[in-house]
C-alpha cells in the first residue's frame, strides 16, 4: 500500500516537473517576409555593351542638299502631296515633349509634331493638313524605304549608316546625351556615378556610351525608355542617361528630378525623307530655313525650354 502511494507521488512529481520545462518562444504563424519590390518586365542588369554601329565613315553626315525655294513644280513630289490633299508624316507617340499622345485627350503633341505641322503649313497654308502615322523606333527606316510616309519627323539622329538607307534634311535639332538624377542626390555629372546603377534603353548608343564611360557606372538596360523613369522613381537606379530631349520629357513629368551635367555625345536630328525624293529634301530644307528664322524658338520654348536651357536653332550645313 505504502509502496503504491510512493510510486503515485513520484509520478505526479515527474509530470509536474515536465510541465515546468522550457515553454519556448511565442510563435508566429505568418512568417515576416520583406516586400518584393516590383520591376518592369525585361530589365537587364549590367548587359553586354551593344556594338558601336557607326558603320562606314562618311565625311559629314549632316550635310544636306541646299534648299531651292518653296515652289512646287508639276511632277514634283510636293505636287503629288498637294494633289493628295494631306502630308503623311511618320511620328513617335512615346517620347514626352517630342512626339507623344496626351493621355487625357488622346491627341498627338510635341516638338516633332509641331515641326511636321510647319511642313503642312508651308504646303497647304494649313498646319492641320497632315496625317500622322505613328511608327515604332525599329520601323522608322523601313517606313521610309517603303515610301509609307512623305517625311519622318521622329527625333532621328543623322548617321552615316542611315544616310545609306534614307535621305535627311538639314539638322533641325541638336541633342546630346546627359544624365537625369533626383534633385538633392548630389550627382552633378556622369563622372559622379561610377559604380552606381544608371538606366538606358537596350541596344542604344546611350548604353554603349555608358559602358565606355570612366569611371564606369553599372548599366541597367530596359526594353522601353519610359521604364527608365519608372526605375528612377522606384529608386531601383540612381540615374537615367540618354538623349537630353528624352530626359527633358522625363524631368517634366516629375518635379523631384532634374537633368544635370554637360552633353557628352552629339545627336543631330534630321527629318527623314525617302531616298529618291531629292526635290522633297530641298523643299523641306527651304521650309526649315523659314522655321529657324521664325517659329523655331516658339516651338522650343513651348516644349523644351522649361526643362532644358534656352537654345538657338542649329545652323544648317549643305553639300
Amino acid at each position, binding site marked *: 500500500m505504502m509502496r503504491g502511494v510512493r510510486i503515485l507521488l513520484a509520478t505526479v512529481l515527474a509530470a509536474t516537473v515536465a510541465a515546468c520545462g522550457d515553454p519556448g518562444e511565442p510563435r508566429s504563424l505568418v512568417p515576416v517576409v520583406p516586400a518584393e519590390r516590383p520591376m518592369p518586365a525585361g530589365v537587364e542588369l549590367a548587359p553586354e555593351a551593344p556594338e558601336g554601329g557607326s558603320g562606314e565613315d562618311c565625311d559629314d553626315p549632316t550635310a544636306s542638299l541646299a534648299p531651292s525655294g518653296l515652289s512646287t513644280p508639276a511632277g514634283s513630289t510636293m505636287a503629288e502631296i498637294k494633289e493628295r490633299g494631306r502630308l503623311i508624316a511618320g511620328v513617335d507617340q*512615346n517620347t514626352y515633349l517630342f512626339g507623344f499622345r*496626351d*493621355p487625357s485627350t488622346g491627341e498627338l503633341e510635341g516638338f516633332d509634331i509641331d515641326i511636321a505641322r510647319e511642313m503642312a503649313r508651308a504646303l497647304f497654308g494649313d498646319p492641320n493638313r497632315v496625317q500622322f502615322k505613328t511608327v515604332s523606333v525599329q520601323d522608322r527606316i523601313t517606313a521610309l524605304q517603303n515610301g509609307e510616309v512623305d517625311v519622318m519627323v521622329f527625333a532621328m539622329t543623322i548617321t552615316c549608316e542611315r544616310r545609306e538607307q534614307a535621305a535627311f534634311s538639314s539638322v533641325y535639332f541638336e541633342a546630346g546625351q546627359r544624365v537625369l538624377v533626383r534633385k538633392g542626390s548630389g550627382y552633378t555629372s556622369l563622372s559622379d556615378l561610377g559604380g552606381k546603377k544608371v538606366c538606358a534603353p537596350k541596344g542604344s548608343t546611350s548604353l554603349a556610351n555608358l559602358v565606355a564611360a570612366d569611371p564606369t557606372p553599372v548599366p541597367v538596360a530596359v526594353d522601353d525608355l519610359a521604364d527608365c523613369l519608372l526605375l528612377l522613381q522606384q529608386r531601383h537606379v540612381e540615374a537615367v542617361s540618354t538623349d537630353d530631349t528624352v530626359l527633358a520629357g522625363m524631368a517634366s513629368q516629375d518635379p523631384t528630378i532634374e537633368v544635370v551635367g554637360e552633353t557628352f555625345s552629339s545627336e543631330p536630328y534630321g527629318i527623314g525623307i525617302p531616298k529618291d525624293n531629292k526635290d522633297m529634301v530641298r523643299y523641306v530644307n527651304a521650309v526649315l530655313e523659314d522655321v529657324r528664322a521664325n517659329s523655331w524658338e516658339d516651338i522650343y520654348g513651348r516644349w523644351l525650354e522649361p526643362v532644358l536651357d534656352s537654345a538657338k536653332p542649329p545652323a544648317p550645313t549643305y553639300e
Partner: protein
Amino acid sequence: MVANSWATTPGRLSIIAGGIVALILLTGVVAAATAMSKSDTTTNLVEIHEPTAADVQRLYSALSDADAAAASSLLAAGDEPIELRRRYENDIALVGPTLGLAALDRSGDPRVKEQIEVVGRQVPTYVGLVETARTNSRQGLPIGGAYLREASNLMRTEILPAAERLYRIQVERVADERESAVSFPYAATALAVLLIVALVAAQIQVRRLSKRRLNVGLLVATSAILLGVIWSSVAMTAHARLVNEGHDHGSAQVNLLADTRITALQARADELLTLVARGAGATYEEEFAKLSRTIVGDGGDGGTLREARTMTRDEEMVHHLDQSIGAAERWLTTHGEIRQSDDGGNYEEAVELAIDSRRAGSSAVEFRSLDDHLGVAIKGGRQHFVAETVGGARALTLLTAGWALLALVAAAGVVSGIRQRLREYR
C-alpha cells in the same frame, strides 16, 4: 475451454452462434460506416470542395479581369468610364474574402499556404501600381503607361501563376474526394462474403447435428444479410454512376470552360496592353495569337470551346457554347482590324475598336459577349454537377440505418435459431 465445449454438441452450437453473431456485428458496423463515409464525402464534395474550387477559379478570373479592366481604363483617354472602374474595384474586392475562405480549407497542405501567401502579398502592391498609373494618366503624364505595364507584369508573372496553382490544387482535391466517394468497398464486401459463407456453413452444421431440415433463425439471418448486400450494390452503383456523371458532364466541363475563360481574359489583356505599349507591344501580340488559338483553334477547327461543346448534351448549354464560339470568332476578326489600324498608324481608330462598348462589333462588345456566355455555361455545368452529385448522395440515404437494422435482425435470427436447438438438449 473452447476445446472442451467443442466436444459436446450444445457447446459446439454455442460457439458457432457466438462467432456468427460477432461476425454479423462487425459486418454491420463496417458496412454502415462505409455507407456513411461515402455519403459524407459526397455531401462534402457539393458543399465544400467544389465550391472552394469554384471560388478560387472565380478569384483567378477576377484577377485577370482586373488586369484587363485596368488596361481598358488607361486607354480610355480622359475620364475613365465608371463601369470599368467598378469592375476593377469589384474584382479586387473579391481577393481578400476568397483568400480567407481558401485558407480555411487548407487541410494542412503546405502548397495551399504558399500560394495564398504570394497572392496575399502581391495584390496590394499591384493595386498600388495601378493607382500610380491612374494618377499619372489623369495628369496627362505618359509615365502612367509604364506603371500599368509594370503592374500587369507583376500580375502575370507572380499573382496569376499562384492563383492558378491554388485553383489546380483545389481541382485536384475535388478529384481525390470524388474518387474516394466512388471507390469499391473492399472491406465491407469481404466481410459480407465471409459472413454469408459462415451462415451457409452453420446451416449445414446445425442440420447435421440436429437432423432437422432448415433452421428458420439462420435463414432469416442469411436473408437479412443478402438483402443488405443487394441494397448496397444497387445503391452504391447508382451513387457511383451519378457522381461520375456529375463529373463527366458537370465539373470536367466546368474545368475546361473555366480554363477557356481565363485564357480569353488573358488574351483580352494582351490586346489592350499592345495598345498601351504604343508600338512596342510585339510580345503582347504574340501571346494574344497563341492564347486565341487555344480558345478557337485554327480556321474554324479545334480549340477548347469546341471541345467543351462536344462534351455537352444539354441543349441550353450547347446554345451558350455556340454563342461563345461565334463571339470569339467575331472578336478575332475585330482584333485583326485593330492591328491593321494600329500598324497603319491609325491609333485612335484602333483604340476605339478595342474599348468602345457602345460600338457594335467592337472587341469590347464581342469579348463581353464571349465572357457572359461562358459565365452562363459554367453556371450550367456546375448546376449539372450539383444535381447529379446530390442525387448520388440521396441514393445512399438510409443505407447506414438500414445496415444497423439488418445486422440486428440477423443477429437476433441467429441467436433465436440456435437457442431453439439448444433447448432440445435440456
